[in-house]
């Protein structure tokens, strides 16, 4: 009987090569590594490499993020440790690891300790199905996008675990907000993804990248807009960061955590934008595909660009209120998502295999619809925000030169 893991083995050439290396390694004619162990070792090595790459890129990312936000705020940012402060993440990690791991009295011990682990698993799992470059991926799941939707909901559970187990009311507030927000934004996010799926005709991310003759951001502007907002809300990034709104809830669901448990939460939150940027790149920006440069570099550059845009938004915008966030999801993004899905479905129905001309016609139609929709929605929303006249004019007067010393 063929073992169950064989289909997975066949899926990925890189993995198959590693597996073959282990399985066919012989020692005086004897192959000491059995089939299942070879399977395990190959898998472990790849996962180890990918997870560590992600974590290391994220730690460097935290440094870049802090430096950039510093510059956005007309400061310098951390620049003390190492050249240009590059070792700041290392110093942070050392500090966090050597801190006392306090646990307040009256917490639910198991749930409290488990929550950070659960929280960090999900952003890492996202990278299991992302194609990092041409033929470079851990698994080409035929339900890849469904897998991503599934794992991105896991933090909700972790958040609620942390908030509930802490026995702190700020934490509980944060957890409740988090659950409400994530459940709400799941709907428009999925609706916007379905448009992409209709165009690509597959759930596999590898196929979606290959199906993009032109980037789907052009074909799905409305979908991209909805997805960008929804994924920002899913990650609790500004302006949707009500879960850990520092000015309101101190730190939200991880108020009571310290030491490396807190560090784990932070790490997961810094990985999340990279995961989100990877998903956006794959779904809307043609993934790893690009001219001249190697595919991996293209992927990395696109991810960095999307990540920068998320950062820029974070550095600028204030935070919305909880009911406004819910209203945005259900009153505006949800109908827009339905509309987008409907239009895309109609287009796919009319042009089943579109020619290049038809594709560009589709781009035109979708952009016109997107702009009309957004303008209409903006007028709907700005009804209650009629702008007032400025309070008092500031007349410009001719001033005597003060430089004459008095």
């Amino acid at each position, binding site marked *: 009987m063929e073992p169950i893991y064989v289909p997975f083995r066949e899926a990925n050439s890189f993995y198959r090569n590693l597996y073959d290396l282990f399985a066919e390694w012989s020692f005086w004619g004897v192959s000491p590594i059995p089939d299942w162990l070879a399977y395990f070792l190959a898998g472990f090595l790849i996962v180890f490499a990918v997870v560590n790459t992600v974590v290391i890129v994220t730690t460097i990312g935290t440094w870049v993020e802090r430096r950039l936000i510093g510059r956005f705020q007309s400061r310098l940012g951390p620049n003390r440790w190492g050249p240009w402060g590059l070792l700041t993440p290392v110093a942070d990690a050392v500090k966090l690891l050597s801190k006392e791991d306090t646990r307040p009295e009256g917490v639910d011990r198991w749930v409290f300790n488990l929550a950070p682990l659960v929280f960090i698993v999900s952003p890492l799992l996202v990278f299991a199905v992302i194609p990092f470059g041409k033929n470079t991926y851990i698994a080409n799941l035929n339900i890849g996008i469904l897998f991503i939707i599934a794992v991105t909901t896991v933090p909700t559970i972790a958040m609620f675990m942390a908030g509930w187990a802490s026995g702190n009311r700020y934490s509980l507030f944060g957890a409740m907000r988090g659950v409400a927000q994530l459940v709400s934004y799941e709907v428009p996010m999925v609706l916007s993804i379905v448009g992409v799926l209709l165009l690509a005709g597959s759930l596999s991310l590898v196929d979606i990248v290959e199906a993009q003759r032109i980037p789907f951001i052009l074909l799905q502007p409305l979908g991209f807009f909805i997805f960008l907002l929804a994924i920002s809300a899913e990650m609790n990034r500004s302006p949707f960061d009500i879960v850990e709104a520092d000015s309101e809830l101190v730190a939200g669901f991880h108020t009571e955590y310290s030491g490396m448990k807190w560090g784990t939460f932070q790490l997961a939150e810094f990985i999340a934008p990279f995961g989100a940027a990877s998903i956006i790149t794959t779904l809307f920006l043609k993934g790893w595909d690009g001219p001249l440069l190697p595919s991996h570099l293209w992927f990395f550059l696109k991810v960095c660009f999307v990540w920068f845009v998320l950062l820029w938004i974070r550095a600028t915008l204030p935070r919305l209120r909880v009911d406004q966030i819910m209203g945005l999801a259900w009153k505006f993004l949800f109908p827009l998502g339905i509309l987008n899905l409907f239009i895309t479905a109609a287009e796919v129905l009319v042009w089943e295999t579109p020619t290049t001309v038809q594709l560009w016609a589709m781009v035109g139609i979708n952009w016109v619809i997107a702009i009309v929709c957004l303008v209409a929605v903006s007028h709907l929303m700005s009804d209650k925000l009629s702008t*007032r006249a400025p309070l008092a004019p500031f007349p410009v007067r001719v001033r005597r030169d*003060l430089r004459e010393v*008095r």
Partner: protein
Amino acid sequence: MPIRTEPVTINLGPQHPSTHGVFRMRITFDGEIILDVEPIFGYLHRGSEKLAEERTYTQVITLTDRLDYVSSMSNNLAYVLAVEKLAGINPPERAMYMRVMVAELQRIVSHLVATGFFLNDLGALATPLMYCFREREKILEMFEMLCGARITLSYMRVGGIFQDTPPEFWPVLSDFLDYMPGYIDEYERLITGNEILLSRTKGTGILSAETAINSSISGPVLRASGVNWDLRKADPYDVYDRMEFDVPLGTVGDNYDRYLMRIAEMRQSLRIIEQCADQIEDGPIKANVPALVRPPIGDAYGHVEAPKGELGFYMVSDGSIAPYRFKIRSPSLLNLSALRDMLVGCKLADMIVTFGSIDINMGEVDR
């Protein structure tokens, strides 16, 4: 079947990121809706009023620096005005112009801090705060030129100011007046039109004019409710009667009005500073006042329009070198009187924003 819920009580503070100091509010929530608020303070009580009874009139100036530590100049001005009223001293003209000028500079500082922290409370990741502090720094540098300190200034003396301006002050002020309107425009571009700010602040934390007057609210918070009351116009002190400026007024009294009020007042302050710099003439900077002031027996109440509201000092003299009674009418404390009216019924997030828009300073609340 209705869900059985029960209200949650939270002690917001004393150590909370957005209580602007050590301030505590005992809040009862129904979900996210506020049912009841009880402010609790006194964590920063230093007994300034009692301490002043043991100090000479000049030494008390250092105490007033520490009331509202982001607007020391206004505190100094209110204090010296009260003592001058008590002792019947008239300061020379140049000193009066200098006092008005630095008090208006201080108003800009205080409003910059208020705006910055207000936007920080809205969750803008300290970006507007950093921009506001960047310009605040310029004013503090000017203060350092004038009196050698940046925060605790002790600049004014009974009967004038302590020392004339250094020559390098005027070019710096001139430059400041040139670029500051541009920076205020930049804050407005950054945030005033921002739809998130509009939706967060419009129609939240409304304070009606009647409640405001009844609760002894003063300053920008009162004027945001549409009450035209500015001591600089109503009871002009020093040389404010020679200045030409407008008093910006709000219409609704919500958080947005209070925010806009401060931006508009900064522009008006720049106008006043310009006029002061225009009109100021050479002359003595201090009236002939002995080192130990001995006002005649009696009492006096002196007040100014400080950045946060009406700051008044009620002083009783028994003819000695120290005040017999020194009472501070602090705007921050009284602006909290209507806190409950503004907060009950709104959400937790609105509460933080409303609290930020009142702009209190714990050094002045607890004294």
